[in-house]
């Protein structure tokens, strides 16, 4: 994956148009890795919300992950310089059996928890037992991702073995999930809820304090198992809810970075104000806005009507315009554009309904479909959206205009988020804004939204198609990437043709940060690469 690094802006160049990014340098990750790190310093970063709890096995928000992740190690993790390549964290090596049913991990020796005890395979087993087979009353948010696991064993202190029920293409990558920090077995045995309110990991930073609603502090783990790491003396996460206050915090140097991302306007403001002191990393984000149509309500029970709505959307034109004012930028199908392994190429994409670059032809087809469905003069419906401007309301307003082009009138109802979520979940809508953000590019995760609603709790369209469920299972168990890609393409074609839920435009991850922050490479997800192990501060 390549990330765009923008440095050295002059004030005047930025004033003409920061969007031109004329001084952008495309730097290879390897070149960044070659920089000479410096030890010391405290990294301050802004987080838009604060963690409700500390147990990442059950939390689902970046707000928990950003301050908590630096305290923990994973079994394996994504290599930030070579994403999606995986590297060992507490595991020093691993081996997969020929039948793909047994994964054996060798655990590094000498890793210590922050309380001084030694990490062994027993801790890894206890951690994954909690995630995959949680005891009564213990919440595990991503348990379903490990449905293929039969058992986890720790035959000795340095070996962990996962036995699978079937070979699963996504299994190894799922073990690199940032949501799976390794906990201490003895603590879990005494109280499986202990980690909800306490921290004791083997990560690069030791927990110091969490002042509720204010900030979170970690200090360097002097016993960290990787010699010479972390570089930082510590970190301080500051919880700043208001977007403009977050931007101001970076501008004023109170925070050096915000890991989730800023809007293009905020990026341009910072570049204008701070010039070469700011570096911008940008790349397509693993988040997409989708439209879910309630297939149990007329006229959305008719595939032709649904497809017409998707055909009316000029995604390519929208990308060019919306990316100027929002984080909406990349055009893609159901997999993140740019993820070569499984995403449709542009050539494949333009063949799919709603993705043609000839918008006039698409809209002509849309009108024809509406006429066939009995709506020659269009129809009116209510489109529900959440009350968050960037990017939800921006997209909502734009979509309404797109649908107007084929004679369909949408009444944009913007709801407070709690009420919106309730209506979306209960099916109290005709059409609704929907979205997906995942921690890694993986068909098992991205395709799940489009599986029958009886199987997928995040398919809000109430649509069932056994063929799609079958394809989902098939791709999930196909370990040959080429064969899997073919199935994913077939799945995608059905989804976009039946258009019960369809992607609009993918997000662009924009991370402006102080140039003195080094060793953090932007990955497509704001859930990844948060342990701060390699981060260091320059002059």
């Amino acid at each position, binding site marked *: 994956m390549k990330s765009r690094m923008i440095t050295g802006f002059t004030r005047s160049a930025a004033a003409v148009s920061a969007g031109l990014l004329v001084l952008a340098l495309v730097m290879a990750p390897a070149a960044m890795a070659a920089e000479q790190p410096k030890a010391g310093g405290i990294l301050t970063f802004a987080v838009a919300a604060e963690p409700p709890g500390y147990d990442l096995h059950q939390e*689902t928000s970046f707000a928990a992950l950003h301050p908590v992740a630096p305290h923990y190690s994973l079994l394996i993790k994504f290599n930030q310089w070579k994403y999606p390549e995986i590297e060992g964290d507490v595991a020093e090596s691993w081996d997969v059996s020929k039948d793909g049913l047994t994964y054996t991990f060798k655990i590094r020796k000498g890793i210590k928890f922050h309380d001084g005890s030694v990490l062994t395979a027993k801790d890894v087993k206890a951690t994954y037992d909690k995630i995959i087979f949680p005891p009564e009353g213990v919440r595990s948010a991503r348990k379903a991702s490990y449905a293929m696991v039969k058992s986890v064993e720790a035959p000795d202190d340095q070996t962990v073995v996962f036995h699978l029920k079937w070979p699963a293409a996504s299994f190894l990558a799922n073990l690199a999930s940032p949501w799976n920090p390794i906990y201490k077995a003895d603590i879990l045995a005494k109280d499986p809820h202990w980690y909800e309110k306490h921290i004791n990991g083997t990560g690069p930073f030791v927990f110091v304090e969490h002042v509720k609603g204010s900030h979170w502090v970690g200090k360097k783990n002097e016993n960290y198992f990787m010699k010479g790491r972390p570089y930082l003396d510590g970190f301080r996460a500051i919880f*700043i*809810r208001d977007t*403009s206050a977050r931007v101001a915090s970076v501008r*004023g140097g*109170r*925070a050096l970075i915000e890991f989730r991302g800023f809007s293009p306007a905020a990026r341009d403001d910072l570049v204008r104000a701070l010039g070469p002191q700011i570096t911008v990393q940008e790349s397509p984000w693993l988040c997409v806005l989708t439209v879910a149509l309630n297939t149990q309500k007329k006229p959305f029970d008719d595939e032709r009507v649904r497809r017409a709505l998707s055909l009316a959307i000029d995604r390519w034109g929208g990308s060019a315009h919306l990316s100027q004012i929002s984080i909406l930028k990349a055009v893609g199908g159901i997999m993140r554009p740019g993820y070569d392994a499984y995403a449709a190429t542009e050539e494949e994409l333009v063949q799919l309904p709603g993705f043609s670059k000839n918008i006039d032809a698409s809209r002509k087809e849309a009108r024809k479909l509406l006429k066939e469905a009995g709506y020659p003069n269009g129809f009116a419906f209510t489109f529900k959206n959440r009350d968050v401007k960037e990017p939800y309301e921006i997209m909502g307003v734009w979509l309404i205009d797109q649908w107007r082009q084929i004679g369909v009138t949408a009444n944009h109802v913007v709801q407070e988020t*709690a009420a919106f979520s309730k209506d979306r979940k209960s099916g109290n809508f005709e059409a609704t804004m929907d979205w997906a953000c995942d921690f890694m590019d993986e068909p098992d995760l991205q395709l*799940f939204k489009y599986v029958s609603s009886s199987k997928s*709790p995040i398919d809000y369209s109430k649509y069932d198609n056994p063929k799609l469920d079958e394809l989902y299972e098939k791709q999930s168990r196909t370990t040959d990437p080429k064969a899997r890609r073919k199935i994913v393409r077939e799945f995608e074609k059905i989804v976009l043709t039946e258009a019960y839920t369809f992607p609009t435009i993918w997000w662009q991850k924009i991370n402006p940060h102080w140039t003195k922050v080094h060793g953090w490479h932007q990955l497509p997800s704001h859930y990844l690469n948060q342990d701060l192990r390699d981060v260091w501060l320059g002059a």
Partner: protein
Amino acid sequence: MQRYIIKRFLLMIPTLLGVAVLVFVLMRVVPGDIVELRYTLEGTAVSDELLAQERARLGLDKPVVEQFATWMWGIVRFDFGKSMWTDNPVKDEIALRLQLSLQVAIMATIFATLLSIPLGILAALKQDTWVDYAIRVFSIAGLAMPSFWLGILIILGLLIFFRWLPPMFYTPFWVNPWENMSQLIWPALAVGYRYSAVATRMTRSSMLEVLREDYVRTARAKGLWENMVIVRHAMKNAILPVITVLGLEFAFLVGGLVVTEQVFNLNGLGMLFVESVARRDYTMTQALVVLVGFTFILVNFAIDIMYAWFDPRIRYG
């Protein structure tokens, strides 16, 4: 006087009870579910089973009447329960923010009082002169300018002209007074300005009214020193409505500084309030409403006592 205080104090109980019932009902009427917000907002495919399990843990699956009875029984024992969002005791979460909110409210009140009373009296004494006009313009500008907007201007000014931003997290005064004041002085000024504008206008009009009273004319006719006339005779009577305004504004500041807290990233009660409502954190919202209600009632109670102290007609009436 004692009877008067006891009577006013006892009236607080049914008022607080009414507030408690009202907030409980309103929170249940507003659609939304804390469990869905916590687990599904970022698109994670969390099973319905887990959501149901979590609702049961929070007691949301129980009949509303039972939930109300449990909550009321807690209040009677001064136990406000745990926040449904963080699982921490509500009283701890509130106590943490209360010191910041109280400090800002006190600082803003001191600023507003020191500014508004002299300015209001001066404007009244110099009615229709350039001094009066200048004070009126100053106070009308304060009324017209929302505090949060002034806060944004202050932040931008500090950033653009001094390349400096106030600290983004709270340090208690006794830990580091300089750090504490460099964070809180700005919101106190932003809020205090509007606050002082209201009080200045009130002081001016109240003074103008009193200065025309017969007893003031009599005092002057007796040959009393002008300062004595103003302080002892006019101001003591003119101050009553100003006290009401200052008191109510103070109570409002304790829990109502929502946007200003956002602008300055203050970890105060206002932010906690809005976040709790947005998250449908019933226990936290209910406790906060009761607390803010209690503050208002207490301030009103104090105002009533002060009225009685300033004006004997009230306590003997």
